[in-house]
């Protein structure tokens, strides 16, 4: 089980787990609850350059399709094929098995604009999303 206290959060409801210069990306528990049952995930190709806040993946639920934005810039080095094969993992395990892709981060400074778990929870409560 991931320690969510160590994750960083974007306003667009992605989380980032930093391991050295690698950042793992997924969507938050709040996001998976809001979009309800995920039926399709489209991941970026390994090697793709993504920019902070640029569209990096697509997730489709029974409600609608949503863009997933990269919380930081860099090159995609891994994509979690398991969520493409079985999208329900995103609902079952948003912070662990349900990760989307990993980025080789270009600029670790970019994480400064992301929120802590506490700030993210406040952000959701404020209803500004």
């Amino acid at each position: 089980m991931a320690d969510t206290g160590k994750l960083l959060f974007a306003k667009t409801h992605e989380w980032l787990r930093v391991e050295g210069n690698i950042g793992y990306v997924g969507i938050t528990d709040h996001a998976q609850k809001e979009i309800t049952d995920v039926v399709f995930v489209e991941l970026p190709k390994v090697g793709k350059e993504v920019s902070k806040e640029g569209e990096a993946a697509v997730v489709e639920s029974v409600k609608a399709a949503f863009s997933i934005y990269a919380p930081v810039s860099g090159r995609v080095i891994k994509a979690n094929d398991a969520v493409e094969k079985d999208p329900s993992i995103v609902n079952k395990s948003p912070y662990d098995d349900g990760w989307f892709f990993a980025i080789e981060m270009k600029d670790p400074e970019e994480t400064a604009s992301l929120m802590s778990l506490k700030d993210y929870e406040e952000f959701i409560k404020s209803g500004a999303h």
Partner: protein
Amino acid sequence: MEKLIFETGSEGRNGCSLPKLDVPDAAESSFIPGNLLRRKEALLPEVSELDCIRHFTRLSRLNYSVDTNFYPLGSCTMKYNPRINEKIASLPQFSALHPYQPESSVQGMLKLLYDTEQMLCRICGMDAFTLQPAAGAHGELTGMLIARAYHVSKGDPRKKVLIPDSAHGTNPASAALCGYEVVTVKSGPDGRIDIGALKDAAGQDVAVMMLTNPNTLGLFEKDIKKIADIIHGSGALLYLDGANMNALAGVSRPGDMGFDICHVNLHKTFSTPHGGGGPGSGPVGVKAALADYLPAPRIKIKRNKFTLDSDCKKSIGKVKAFYGNIGVVIKAYCYIRSLGGEGLRDAAFEAVLNANYLKAKLRGNYTPAFDGEPCMHEFVLTGKDKKPMGVRTLDIAKRLLDYGYYAPTIYFPLIVEEAIMIEPTETESKQTLDAFADVMIKITGEAASDPSLVTSAPHTTPVRRLDEVAAARELNLRWKKTGA
């Protein structure tokens, strides 16, 4: 539930007795090449004429349409389709025409198409129209191809298309299909384009801004002239998604607002059947500077005769076989001619009045996503205040089916949490709107007192709540004969 026709009947049963062969019998293989012959028997239904009639009659009774009940599907303008228009379009003088007939023998048909283009030009404030696109999204793609051809001809092929976050999903899809990068422009707190955000996004690499007016929240973009100035100032074009023209026809013209290209949906604003009653038609209009890029052929008058002119060097080419869905155009022509300019204006006024009446009836039991001002022809509610009861917008929509109503559009636009989007149209009476509002209010009572009644709805439909997750994850569209 009605079985598939393949699952009924009995082996060897059929609906017709063929006369005896009056030519020598021969095996198929003697006159059809072996590689074109099927290897397995075709699994055709084996039913009698009566079996067949009953099957399809029963199915037709399960059908739900604007002819049977109220259909408040937001952004779709499900208005009544006048029968007189169907009758006229089916006259053999129209329906028996062949698209390859010589032009000299179809002058009347060409005049009707030409006149429809001229009427749409007047309604929209545009200079030229094409009737080719077969639907709204097809119109959008046509519009994007015209914009691309225009920018390329100026030696400035731009890369980006600006689209508000409240837009129909077809807008980004059409722009992307045309090779553009889509840039989302955020809405402000009043549900309209944020002028500051627009200024930041506008620039030399923007080809087009696609805008819906009134927007999908049912709000008129009051700053439309300012928006047009910003877009034109950067050398880009302004495109109107005309899905919501039912609020404007006869009242206000996109061309006067600064739009350079627009599409209209004949199957929405101009009353032709929609969806399963289809097909659609999405004519595209442009300002004079873009007319040469319209799809070929174009209807022109040469030596006092109507002609389909294919000599259009700058044209983006054909976008549909022949000249579009002609049957739909005939019905829209009849609709426009029977209403006239004043009738169109009255229809728009009444569409807006009906939406505001219904919104006012529901306020108090439902929260409008944007309030404090009148809406246009549709409005959006948010179901987020029902969430603490464990009831979501989806549940409310399903419960409406039990009361015999088609569900409104839900979970769109995306920027409204638990959105419910309602468009009553002008063809509904006060009694219909009152009855619908009563049911909506009754459902809020049920959500409070007996939420499981709502969350397990529908209870009275031929099929109960569908497993949408399984339907999406394990898509199964094909019937297979058991044991085959």
